[in-house]
């Protein structure tokens, strides 16, 4: 019986040591978050690892980094940054989670900003190969869904497409379906003659006071015009967002989404 106890003690010591290492890894994450906004090196590494065209990748990253820096210059305070290149639950402080079912590789960077007025601003970028999209998309492209608790009062969006290395503002839309709590971007966007299509966009939400919503969810679905394409199953969620400032509007949440399509 003694050896069993000894094995147990050794095992528990090993587990404790590993847990201590886990605690220590917090420092690495904190240090890392301070540099993500300027360089996005992981996204670049990801692109290089996947043999994607650097000429294409660089302007995308530059574009996003510029937007991030603009936010910082405008006085937004970075509260939280999370990065994940894996389909795992990844949570830290704000219970960010990412789930997907179909796409095996996704590079997510998500940050939470807060402006001087206490308004929250969520910036998330996906770096995701849409290999399933091998045909022109002529119908609705993306929709965002929100949890039922939300009564979104206003939605703005800007969508940029990278065509021939140039970003084009595709649409400034307010096409939120208040009944179904769906925001849809109607599109006929893809020019099959080009090799890669990228979409960068954000959604801007105003949520009126009176909702005790603690859940924001943005899901991305793809339509090919008439049929619902296979759902890539991407969900970006911020659970339990703490709305510290209860002003006229609860919060502003924005989502940046970048798609990459490689047409075969």
């Amino acid at each position, binding site marked *: *019986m003694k050896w069993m106890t000894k*094995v*147990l003690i050794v095992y528990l010591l090993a*587990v404790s040591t590993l847990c201590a290492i*886990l*605690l220590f890894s*917090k420092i690495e994450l904190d240090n890392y978050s301070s540099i993500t906004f300027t360089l996005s090196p992981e996204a670049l590494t990801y692109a290089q690892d996947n043999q994607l065209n650097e000429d294409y990748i660089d302007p995308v990253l530059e574009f996003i980094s510029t937007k991030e820096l603009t936010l910082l210059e405008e006085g937004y305070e970075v509260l939280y940054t999370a*990065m*994940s290149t894996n389909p795992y639950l990844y949570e830290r*402080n704000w219970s960010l989670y990412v789930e997907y079912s179909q796409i095996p590789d996704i590079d997510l960077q998500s940050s939470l900003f807060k402006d001087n007025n206490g308004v929250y601003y969520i910036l998330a970028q996906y770096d995701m190969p849409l290999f399933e999209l091998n045909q022109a998309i002529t119908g609705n492209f993306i929709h965002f869904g929100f949890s039922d608790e939300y009564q979104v009062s206003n939605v703005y969006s800007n969508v940029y497409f990278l065509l021939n290395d140039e970003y084009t503002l595709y649409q400034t839309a307010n096409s939120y379906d208040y009944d179904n709590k769906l925001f849809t971007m109607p599109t006929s966007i893809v020019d099959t003659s080009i090799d890669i299509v990228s979409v960068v966009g954000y959604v801007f939400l105003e949520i009126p006071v009176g909702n005790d919503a603690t859940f924001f969810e943005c899901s991305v679905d793809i339509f090919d015009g008439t049929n619902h394409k296979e759902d890539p199953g991407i969900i970006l969620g911020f659970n339990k967002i703490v709305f510290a400032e209860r002003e006229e509007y609860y919060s502003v949440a924005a989502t940046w989404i970048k798609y990459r399509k490689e047409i075969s």
Partner: protein
Amino acid sequence: MVIILALLIALVIVLLGLVIKVLILMHHNRIEEFSTFLQKFVKIILVLTIFGYFLGQFLAIIAYFSDGYSALMQSSRAVYPVLLSLRLVFEVSFYIAIMLWADKLLGNLKINKIFHIDNTKYTKKIGMAFLILFVAEVTTGLLINIAHFASVGGTFELTTSPKMFMYLIIGFILLIVSSLFENSIKIYEENQLTI
């Protein structure tokens, strides 16, 4: 998906068949046959456990290295697979030990060596092993949750699993059986000495 479902159904049917056979053997008090049958069963489970463990580890390693981990994720997340692997090694080691002891115990029963001190030892060892598995399960879960909460944040969650309670209940029952066995052997030996 259909194949997995069919395999699961087949497994359930086989297990049900095993239970029915064991019940029939017990009902007819055929201890030797019962022991022989269970001994074979334990050996199969032993082989499957070892095979399943190595296969699982192999697949986990492949998944880990083919998943495109960034340097950041490797630094912080590498601990999790190591931690979980360690727990698995610990559990599987004890499962193997338990099955080896069970095999010996059944071997004794098969040759009608019932009231023997070895059987008490094996039963006690198996009971203790289950209790140690319980302690390991509880402590590991607690440590991981504390570390996760402290490093990642969010809400502190303490989850329980039925496996944990199963370990505890089986452990206690076996220790009680072992104690009963010990007393029975004493009475048996006294009877043997009585003229």
